[in-house]
């Protein structure tokens, strides 16, 4: 990623600098830089004797957009995937206005570092946690979008997976706002970039592959063949092969279904009569209708808008046709009239 010029102005804020909000007058003392993304830079800061993460950007609207997502995350009952929002404000500097928001500081190693330190037995645990959180997000009508190991932090103990960058979170049925190629099903030629639960599950599968290839790998032929080959070359991925392949193909309707397949170890999308684990069954039955309802809602919506467009086009065509027919008949009438 290249830093553009606007980001450079924000990347040299020294420790001890005080960021004071224009509207709410809260004062934050900068401690150190935590990282930067496409739309801004994140600092660790101290506010009222506690640590917060401060995201600064010259692009006020991208800040607003992320704040919107964090606010709707807060409405998702029981989900702790994203950080909680503390404050939104503007900071007036001599060089111009900087928009920022303060959020909960999530501390810990990122996903891949954690796996490297603690061993691959943790892959399954963390993926299961992630799928539960994603499920809650999905039944509330959202898709996470930019799911990748760098954005996943493991806090604890007890170890719990959290997400620190919500910039890609998109309403289901719309075009994914932000993504990273390696984890994007469109890039691999395995589906569209329309936000749906399966989009996130594809990314989860890629993250699982990523654990065996920490440096990732280049796309060569692309498609399922290349990915399948990469999975087969690593023995640690073999026990997940079926689940990963199913997720890559978009066969799982919901995160719960993928979660269940991982737990059961039967790895196929659950068929009503083939599932063995009765403990998990009721949970799944409860959750599935909601998802299906939402899916059909989304489908209806897109169906409708398509219909409207078609109607509009038809109208235009009808107009053209009548215009041409009337003109021709008028000319013909003139011709006949002239003949008489």
């Amino acid at each position, binding site marked *: *990623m*290249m830093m*553009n010029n606007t980001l450079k102005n924000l990347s040299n804020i020294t420790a001890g600098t005080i960021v004071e909000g224009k*509207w709410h007058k809260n004062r934050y003392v900068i401690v150190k830089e935590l990282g930067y993304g*496409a739309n801004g830079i994140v600092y660790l800061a101290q506010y009222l004797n506690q640590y917060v993460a401060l995201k600064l950007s010259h692009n*006020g*609207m991208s800040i*607003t*957009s992320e*704040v*919107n997502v964090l*606010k709707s995350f807060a409405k998702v009952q029981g989900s702790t995937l994203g950080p909680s929002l503390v404050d*939104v*404000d*503007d900071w007036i500097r001599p060089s111009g*206005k900087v*928009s920022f928001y303060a959020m909960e500081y999530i501390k810990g190693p990122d996903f891949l570092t954690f796996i490297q330190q603690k061993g691959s037995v943790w892959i399954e645990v963390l993926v299961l946690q992630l799928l539960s959180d994603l499920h809650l997000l999905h039944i509330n009508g959202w898709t996470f979008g930019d799911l990748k190991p760098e954005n996943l932090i493991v806090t604890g103990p007890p170890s719990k997976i959290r997400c620190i960058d919500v910039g890609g979170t998109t309403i289901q*049925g*719309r*075009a*994914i*706002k932000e993504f*990273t*190629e390696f984890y994007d099903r*469109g*890039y691999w030629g395995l589906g*569209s*970039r*329309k936000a749906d639960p399966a989009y996130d599950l594809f990314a989860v599968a890629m993250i699982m592959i990523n654990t065996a290839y920490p440096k990732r790998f280049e796309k060569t032929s692309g498609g399922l063949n290349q990915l399948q080959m990469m999975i087969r070359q690593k023995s640690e991925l073999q026990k997940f092969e079926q689940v990963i392949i199913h997720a890559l193909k978009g066969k799982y309707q919901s995160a719960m279904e993928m979660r269940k397949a991982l737990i059961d170890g039967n790895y196929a999308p659950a068929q009503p009569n083939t599932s063995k684990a009765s403990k998990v069954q009721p949970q799944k039955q409860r959750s599935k209708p909601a998802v299906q309802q939402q899916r059909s809602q989304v489908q209806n919506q*897109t169906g409708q*808008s*398509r219909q409207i*467009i078609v109607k509009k086009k038809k109208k*235009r065509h009808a*107009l*053209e046709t009548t*215009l041409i027919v009337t003109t021709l008949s008028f000319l013909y009438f003139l011709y006949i009239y002239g003949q008489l």
Partner: protein
Amino acid sequence: MKTGTLKQILLITDGCSNQGEDPIAVSALAKEQGITVNVIGVMEQDVIDDQGLREIENIALSGGGVSQVVYAQQLSQTVQMVTRKAMTQTLQGVVNKELQQILGGSQTVEDLPPDKRGEVMEVVDELGEKVELEVLILVDTSASMKHKLPTVKEAILDLSLSLNARSGDNHFSVFVFPGKKNDVEKLLDWTPRLESLTSIFSKLTTGGITPTGPALREALSSFKKKRSLRSLISRDDEQYFEESV
């Protein structure tokens, strides 16, 4: 809210223009006609020279668009990001205008308290999803671009994948410069799908000069032709909005 069709030119180049009129002036002209000009500079291991960099930034600046210089392998991601960013920018301009009419004065979204901005952003998001979009892609095929062309093709196809995930309609057109006989050559006329590009692109030959200015002018007139043809029959003119930012 009426936004009409968003019109963008996406210029993909690797350096300085060296023939014909000033591309920065043509780009300013495009902005006046409600067409945004975005520029992506493609680098290799070597860094792009200062003069080229300045030209890239200035074309986008006077065209009311976004510019970014990247290595060839980051092209796909950048192309879609730049296009998105420029769309949001233009839509924000439309929303700001609307706000000024309601609130009076020179208030913009940025002047609202942070809590109120959220609702405005939701409107911008929704417009970005549904608005009709026309993108004319203008590819530099001067000799130094030769081995970057496969990556450029990938990036263009990837862009159509991103944009076609929206519910709004898209129209794409692809021009290359220099062309076989003229300064610029039309590779693909306005179409909602770009898949046919794959076969055409592999037959491309690269040439020596870089007539960026004339190529931009030709691109402008392509928007005009499209408009005038349709507006003869259906009164579509209102749909096209003129001033953007």
